[in-house]
């Protein structure tokens, strides 16, 4: 029955997808058409993409954005995951506090956060680009927290931990080789989300006067507009590919474990 329903053609769904697809892809494809124009020969080609990729700054900025996003993910994995596991296990009094704190960044507009960051941090913090992963971590916290919370709620955490502990695993090993694999669905979702957010963050980065891949696009637009459009297209496609790869790794069961 369920199978028959799924295969059956769904007019409302088809119409929805058609309208959404039109709205989403029309601007995207229009920009794509611009990015493959070659004004000199009047035809089409990958000139601007080749130009962008061979720019020295391209590799510099994309690597920089990647490693900043990587550090943000590491902070999430090494700080947030163990802390949340512990919170779920211990019924500590601080759980309520951290629950509330983790949602607070949603309340603060990024522009206001940037102003606060600029006037507060001591110079040694403001002088290193390493401040960005911590700030990105804060921006991603509400989403990361919720996604991990769902994962941890959906498993018999106490039983699993006790089993691992009585089999002789220490806390670190319990977390890394038992708990994280069990909730890998929500851990992967959290990684994907944190990575994508860090990779595309613009407002905070530019207001704190740092240069990353997203801010570089703005800079390039000033002298090579078609090249900048090509880079913009890549800045859309790269996170999309990364996210697709990450979600493909996740077995379906864990994503829909709650249903």
């Amino acid at each position, binding site marked *: 029955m369920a199978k028959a329903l*799924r295969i059956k053609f*769904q007019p*409302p*769904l088809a119409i*929805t997808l058609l309208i*959404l697809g039109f709205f*989403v892809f*029309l*601007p995207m494809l*229009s*920009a794509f058409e*611009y990015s493959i124009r070659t004004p000199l020969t009047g035809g089409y080609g990958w000139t601007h993409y080749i130009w962008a990729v061979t720019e020295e700054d391209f590799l510099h900025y994309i690597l920089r954005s990647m490693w900043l996003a990587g550090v943000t993910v590491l*902070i999430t994995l090494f*700080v*947030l995951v163990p*802390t949340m596991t*512990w919170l779920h296990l211990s019924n*500590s*009094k601080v759980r309520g506090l*951290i629950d509330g*704190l*983790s949602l607070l960044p*949603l*309340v*603060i*507009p*990024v*522009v*206001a956060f940037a*102003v*606060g960051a*600029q*006037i*507060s*941090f001591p110079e040694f913090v403001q002088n290193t680009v390493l401040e960005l992963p*911590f700030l990105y*971590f*804060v921006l991603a*916290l509400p989403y990361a927290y919720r996604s991990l919370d769902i994962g941890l709620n959906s498993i018999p955490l106490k039983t699993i931990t006790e089993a691992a502990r009585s089999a002789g695993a220490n*806390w670190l090993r319990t977390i890394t080789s038992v708990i994280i694999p069990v909730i890998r669905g929500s851990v992967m979702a959290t990684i*994907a989300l944190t990575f994508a957010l860090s990779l*595309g963050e*613009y*407002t905070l980065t*530019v*207001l704190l006067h740092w240069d990353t891949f*997203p801010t570089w*696009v*703005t800079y390039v637009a000033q002298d090579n507009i078609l090249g900048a*459009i090509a880079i*913009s*297209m890549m*800045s*859309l496609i790269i*996170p*999309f590919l990364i*996210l697709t790869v990450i*979600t493909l790794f996740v077995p*379906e069961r864990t994503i829909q474990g709650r*249903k």
Partner: protein
Amino acid sequence: MTSQVIEGGAPSRGRAFLTSFMKNILPAAPLLLIVGFFFLFPITRLIYVSFLSNDNTFTIDNFKTAIQEPYRTGFINSIKIGVFSAAIAAFPGALAAYFIETRGSSKLRRTIAVMSGVLANTGGVPLAFMFYAALGIQGYLTKALKYLGWDLYSGTFSLGSFVGLLIVYLYFQLPLMVIVFSPAIVSLRREWSEAARNLGASQFNYWIRIGIPLLFPSFIASFLLLFASGFSAYATANALTVGNLPLTPLQIGGLLDGNVSAAQLNLGKALGVVMIVISACAVIPYLAIQRRSAKWQKR
């Protein structure tokens, strides 16, 4: 482990405090330190500094200036664009989420989830390019509409105008609506509609009496979150407008960059605090509703 052993004995008061501290707070310390230093500290300092005059004495003058022109118009425009973009995106987004979640295959749902995640985060120059290419003066849609007899640019329309910006904002607001509203739809249990049908309810009755009342709080909550997102968006507005449309995030950015100077050094901070207050008015009810509906959404 150690703490459990100690607990078994009869520790002195000092040691009891220490063990309770180690058990209850210490493991959370790294997270609390990061959030404290990189989030609470800057926000507290922002609020504190917004009450300082140029001579570092206490004053509320920054706030008095912040609610006067041109900042007043900035707030009105920002609130307007937040409300309109949320209002326009909310219903179609909710409907799309409903059809995708209830009728789509699991593969389709996962693809849409990934795409919405990417699209809800688009903004700034890349988004501006896409809309210039589609709806700019030389854009494809503009040309197509002109061919059909509707000249978009015959009036005052431009992508940097209020209406132009509103259309562009929908590009990330719609996917955001799909993301935040989908969980509510997923948790509508099939049994409920079947039970209603068995008791003789029509499809219409089911929606009026059960479906809509259950989904309505989540719908309002999603609307509020969308408002906050549109209200505080910076990158896209910065890429599309050329100073013609006063918006608070842009005004703050201008003050922060030093591109715009104000007599009061801390005016930008006061504008930031007012933004936080307005955003809180939307996000806090959103969180409260979410928490309430999480009770029945849990399975």
